[in-house]
């Protein structure tokens, strides 16, 4: 393995190219029309334009990617995350072309890709799943009987479900009877399928995931957990490692379950097993992500491991550099995803150009990004601009460091999630570690209160007044500021303004 084609863009493409160079490997970048000037293109040893900006014609176009690999003499392909990373057919195409796919075997991707099938497999392998029925309930009474077995509270869930439709939480037999009819009729009208399953309802769960790595020498290890409960609509916003809710004993048990999950599908390379963790410390398999995760850096920071480098070694047929025994995390790391979304406008995706960028530096701070000054932020791809990661000796120090780093970060030209993160870093339930996946729903409104604080108001107001004064001094002849002339023209101006308003209304 000498030359790796990185089938991705943005921060993750740059991350992988850096790892290649540190391993003494050449890196080939691919790019769409929109990404001609992107940092990952400049960082690579060779770059190939795939096609127009839409992902379907560029980063998702398997044929063009394979062609780019052939033309540049690449002998391996790293898919990054997103795009084709979890498409078994892509991994197969890479293999059939005689190249190394830097990731798991296609069979493992497929086994974990079909979510209900994966759950069944995991149950068989002894990985805990949310208790529930595997057959749909025939009627309300059957659902009541199943609920008694599963244990209350239960979730009545449409077989064809999605997006919260056809779902009801029930805490008693009566509620099951009522909820069953509602869920069934909702499911019928939404999906044309009214089959209902009964599942244990996990209350106030946390999203905790385990990083695993497996090589060709039979070593499958875990690198502890990441806490990813600060989410919005299932999109992670902040991740940390270790989780404030996981102690050594739980880490070992969750790690063991994750290793079992990976082994049961013949896993290779880096992967992540996602769990729901309830307040009693019970955990349930959610799914396995058969790729490198966005949030892998927090694990790297506390375990002192370069996960992408391990992926490269594993793909080249070398053993991992890590010991087989469980490792201990050192200190604490937090990652904030800096996205081009306006947190004060319902996280609306924003576009623009990065007119100015100042990146935080100093001890314990890492910035993994795909932007630089001049980058155009469009709507073709996801909104992740970069990841700010802070490490500290303990959680409190990591939070302080993240605050400091967020205060240093300046991105001008496009609204970002930066102010959201700054507020979370000072919010009590986050700083105390007492939060779960309902976090944003509970504190979001107060956290994103749109008003300006007294502390911020004065400097901003003074700056604006001084800027205005300077701008006026530069363009207005001084005598117009005289009060006599001013009084006279005021009425004229009022009339003009009135006229402008009435014509301007329909704008």
């Amino acid at each position, binding site marked *: 393995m000498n030359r790796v084609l990185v089938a991705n863009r943005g921060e993750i493409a740059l991350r992988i190219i850096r790892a290649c160079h540190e391993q003494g490997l050449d890196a080939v970048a691919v790019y769409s029309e929109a990404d001609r000037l992107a940092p990952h293109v400049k960082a690579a040893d060779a770059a190939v334009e795939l096609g127009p900006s839409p992902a379907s014609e560029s980063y998702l176009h398997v044929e063009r990617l394979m062609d780019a690999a052939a033309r540049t003499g690449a002998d391996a392909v790293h898919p990054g995350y997103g795009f084709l990373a979890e498409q078994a057919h892509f991994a197969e195409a890479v293999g059939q072309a005689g190249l190394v796919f830097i990731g798991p075997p296609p069979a493992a991707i497929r086994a974990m890709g079909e979510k209900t099938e994966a759950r069944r497999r995991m149950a068989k392998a002894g990985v805990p799943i949310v208790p529930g029925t595997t057959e749909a309930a025939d009627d309300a009474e059957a659902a009541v009987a199943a609920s008694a077995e599963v244990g209350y509270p239960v979730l009545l869930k449409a077989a064809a479900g999605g997006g919260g439709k056809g779902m009801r939480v029930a805490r008693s037999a009566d509620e099951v009877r009522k909820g069953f009819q509602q869920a069934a009729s909702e499911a019928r009208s939404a999906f044309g399928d009214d089959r209902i399953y009964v599942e244990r309802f996990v209350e106030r769960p946390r999203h905790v995931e385990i990083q695993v790595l497996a090589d060709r020498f039979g070593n499958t290890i875990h690198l502890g957990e990441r806490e990813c409960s600060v989410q919005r609509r299932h999109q992670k916003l902040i991740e940390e490692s270790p989780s404030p809710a996981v102690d050594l004993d739980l880490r070992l048990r969750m790690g063991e379950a994750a290793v079992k999950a990976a082994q049961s599908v013949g896993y290779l390379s880096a992967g992540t097993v996602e769990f729901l963790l309830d307040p009693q410390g019970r955990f349930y398999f959610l799914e396995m992500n058969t790729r490198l995760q966005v949030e892998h850096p927090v694990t790297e920071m506390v375990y002192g491991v370069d996960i992408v480098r391990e992926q490269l070694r594993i793909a080249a047929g070398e053993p991992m550099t890590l010991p087989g025994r469980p490792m201990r995390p050192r200190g604490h790391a937090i990652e904030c995803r800096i996205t081009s979304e306006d947190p004060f406008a319902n996280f609306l995706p924003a*576009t623009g150009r990065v007119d100015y960028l100042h990146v935080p530096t100093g001890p314990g701070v890492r910035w993994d990004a795909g932007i630089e000054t001049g980058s155009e932020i469009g709507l073709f791809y996801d909104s992740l601009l970069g990841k700010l990661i802070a490490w500290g000796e303990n959680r409190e120090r990591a939070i302080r460091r993240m605050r400091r780093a967020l205060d240093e970060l300046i991105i001008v030209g496009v609204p970002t999630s930066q102010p959201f993160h700054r507020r979370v870093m000072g919010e009590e339930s986050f700083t105390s570690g007492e939060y779960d996946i309902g976090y944003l729903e509970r504190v979001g409104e107060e956290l994103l209160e749109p008003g300006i604080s007294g502390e911020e108001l004065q400097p901003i107001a003074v700056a604006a007044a001084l800027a205005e004064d300077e701008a006026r001094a530069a363009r207005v002849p001084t005598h117009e500021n005289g009060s006599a002339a001013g009084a006279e023209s005021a009425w004229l101006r009022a009339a003009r303004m009135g006229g402008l308003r009435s014509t301007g209304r329909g704008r």
Partner: protein
Amino acid sequence: MKYTVTVGKQTVEVEVSGDSVRLNGEPIGATLIGIPQTPLKQLVLNGRARTFAMLRSDGGWSVQASGRAWLVTVEDERTRQLRELTGQRGGYAAGGLIRAPMPGLVVRVEVEAGQRLEEGAGVVVLEAMKMENEITTSGPGVVKAIHVEAGQAVEKGAPLIEVVQPEG
């Protein structure tokens, strides 16, 4: 010159004459210097330096601090008095024409013509970047016209909904 400076719902008075600056009547030490080749200006206020990204915008300044851009209106006494005289509301007028803040696909129109809306009410759901985004009103109003329908693709800036001030 005495300025009335408004940020959101808060207002302060800043008087600038030569090098001396007063904030709500109190003398303060304040200087503002533009940083060459950047959109940044450095404010030194009572001995503390801060950096803001500052751009002129409609009726005032956009001042970005810690990642958050504030729209700041700066009025001198005369324009403020005139505005009060003619009854125009300060800051950013509520309602009006709501435009698409980004290109996208209209998933849903959530209002009907004639409907009364509270501030922050959702009017249209737009899909962009595979995410559904609810477009909301910036003030209370009544829906006057609807310019789009579900399933329609819109460009950035396309008119979506027209809202007028509620009567009374």
